[in-house]
């Protein structure tokens, strides 16, 4: 058979597998997230459908498929109908360059390379993901705008400003890794980590933290889920959507999350490699899965732990903290790479910056004026009778009174 034809067939099969796998993972991510969140809150979570609730995603999917598609009279029909499709298309397409294993995993003949466990290895891999994730904002903005609803429009505007603000930080935060790697290809970055014998998180702890915060905001996850802040905006841009088209938005959010986790695993944690065991078939994929799963777990953990931040805090954090720190990290890393000094110099620098950040945060938290803390009596009055289940004794209220300080350290 012709090599071109083999390559095309292989690409079709692999793409289909990738899409099916992402959809399955999305479905089970929703279940895992609900179960894990339930554990955090000392509940049990959905466990009725099938063993351990394993059939829950299936049940949810069936239910969604048979829901009515409501198109409000005020909606701009065409845009309203296609907006979720744009979102999910962009999310799926961004995954094309994520390597799940070495391109020479099955050997280096053209046929073996065609069936390697990655859809494509392009020279501009990481930029491709950045570019596609910059398109993710369209689905949300158009969906919110076309709904013809106050909440939707506000959610869309917020999310657009939020996503563009954090995108710059992502680009600059990963520049440090690219300097060490010397390539934009995802496969090349993993190979550079093998060659230099380190995971780039060791050289770039600050870069990783900046990337992680910015990526969380970029995929609209808690504590940055302002576009769908339910206290103020009902469900933000999702308000008027129902059934499977609502699911498409959820789907794209989770797939973007998986892509962000994959980028973190590839850039900072050595992708599919660990300890020279990648020669054994299947092992690289296991490493990759473990690394991505850990990052995804941290996403869920943050959602359970951190309160949602205010919009002005969000914009300040993105522009006034992440962006300058990313530029600082960039310049220092450039110095380390350009003057050819050992990589751990940039590690030390990162740790110093992180330590200073920690100290500043701690000091500012201490400095909240006593008057800003509610008195016991005020706290007692603030709670409506219906939720006053616990007697507020002074030790408990002291613990509660510190809560507002944690929410807004400034």
């Amino acid at each position, binding site marked *: 058979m*012709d090599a*071109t*034809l083999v390559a*095309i067939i292989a690409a079709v099969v692999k793409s289909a597998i990738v899409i099916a796998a992402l959809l399955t993972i999305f479905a089970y991510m929703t279940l895992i997230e609900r179960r894990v969140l339930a554990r955090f809150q000392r509940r049990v979570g959905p466990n009725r459908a099938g063993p351990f609730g394993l059939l829950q995603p299936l049940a949810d999917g069936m239910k969604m498929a048979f829901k009515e598609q409501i198109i409000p009279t005020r909606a*701009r029909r*065409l*845009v309203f109908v296609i907006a979720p499709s744009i979102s999910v298309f962009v999310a799926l397409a961004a995954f094309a360059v994520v390597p799940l294993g070495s391109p020479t995993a099955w050997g280096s003949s053209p046929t073996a390379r065609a069936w390697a466990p990655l859809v494509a290895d*392009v*020279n*501009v891999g990481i*930029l*491709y993901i*950045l*570019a*596609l994730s*910059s*398109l993710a*904002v*369209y689905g949300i*903005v*158009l969906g919110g*705008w076309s709904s013809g609803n106050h909440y939707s*429009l506000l959610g*869309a*505007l917020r999310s*657009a400003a939020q996503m*563009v603000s954090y*995108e710059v930080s992502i680009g600059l935060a990963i520049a440090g890794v690219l300097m060490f790697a010397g*390539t*934009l*290809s995802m496969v090349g970055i993993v190979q550079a980590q093998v060659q230099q014998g380190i995971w780039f998180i060791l050289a770039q702890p600050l870069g990783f933290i900046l990337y992680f915060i910015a990526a969380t905001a970029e995929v609209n996850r808690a504590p940055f889920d302002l576009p769908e802040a339910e206290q103020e905006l009902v469900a933000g841009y999702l308000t008027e959507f129902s059934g499977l088209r609502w699911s498409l938005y959820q789907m794209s959010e989770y797939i973007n999350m998986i892509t962000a986790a994959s980028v973190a695993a590839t850039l900072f944690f050595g992708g599919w490699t660990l300890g020279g065991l990648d020669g054994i078939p299947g092992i690289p994929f296991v490493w990759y899965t473990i690394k991505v799963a850990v990052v995804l777990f941290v996403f869920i953990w943050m959602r359970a732990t951190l309160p949602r931040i205010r919009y002005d805090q969000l914009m300040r954090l993105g522009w006034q903290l992440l962006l300058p720190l990313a530029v600082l990290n960039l310049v220092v890393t450039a110095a380390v790479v350009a003057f050819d000094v050992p990589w751990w110099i940039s590690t030390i620098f990162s740790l110093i910056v992180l330590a200073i950040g920690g100290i500043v945060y701690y000091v500012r938290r201490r400095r909240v004026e006593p008057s800003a803390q509610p008195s016991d009596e005020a706290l007692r009055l603030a709670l409506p009778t219906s939720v006053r289940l616990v007697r507020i004794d002074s030790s408990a209220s002291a613990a509660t009174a510190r809560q507002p300080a944690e929410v807004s350290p400034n």
Partner: protein
Amino acid sequence: MTIDVPAVAFWVIAIILVGSALAVVVMPKIVHAALFLVAVFGAAAGIYVLLNAEFIAIVQVLIYAGAVTILILFAIMLTQNSMSRVSNPFSGQWWLAGLICVLLAAGIIFAVNSSPMAAGAASDALPLANAAGGTVVKLGQLLYSPFAYSYVLPFEIASVVLLVAIVGAIMIGREE
């Protein structure tokens, strides 16, 4: 059986590109026109990929589709007229625009067919693509290395241009 993949890809992309570009002009609602503009940028990126200009293709998507069009959408959504039924009306002078387009197209076709720089010479440009690390590294060397081509000065001047743009953005966005 052989498939001429680049040729197939070119025709698919070209049809999408021209169709979307026409749609940008004729769509009666301006938001739809802006959406087709995204498709135009995406298809143009596809053409760049066919020309082995990967970096330009990605930047096309990143900057034009991902940033400039977002700004256009912002501007459309922030103004009131976007709700009206015909927000992208035809100008009375559409025939003049059409005439200019035809003349421009004729000029481009003539230039492509007669210039020694065009089609026939394309194969000379290919070594660039086969350089180690692809066109991005080669492009970077041309841009940033003073020993190769030296576009270092224009690169630094570009930062001054961006500086002016930042100040301009602040002046435009004044609230008072």
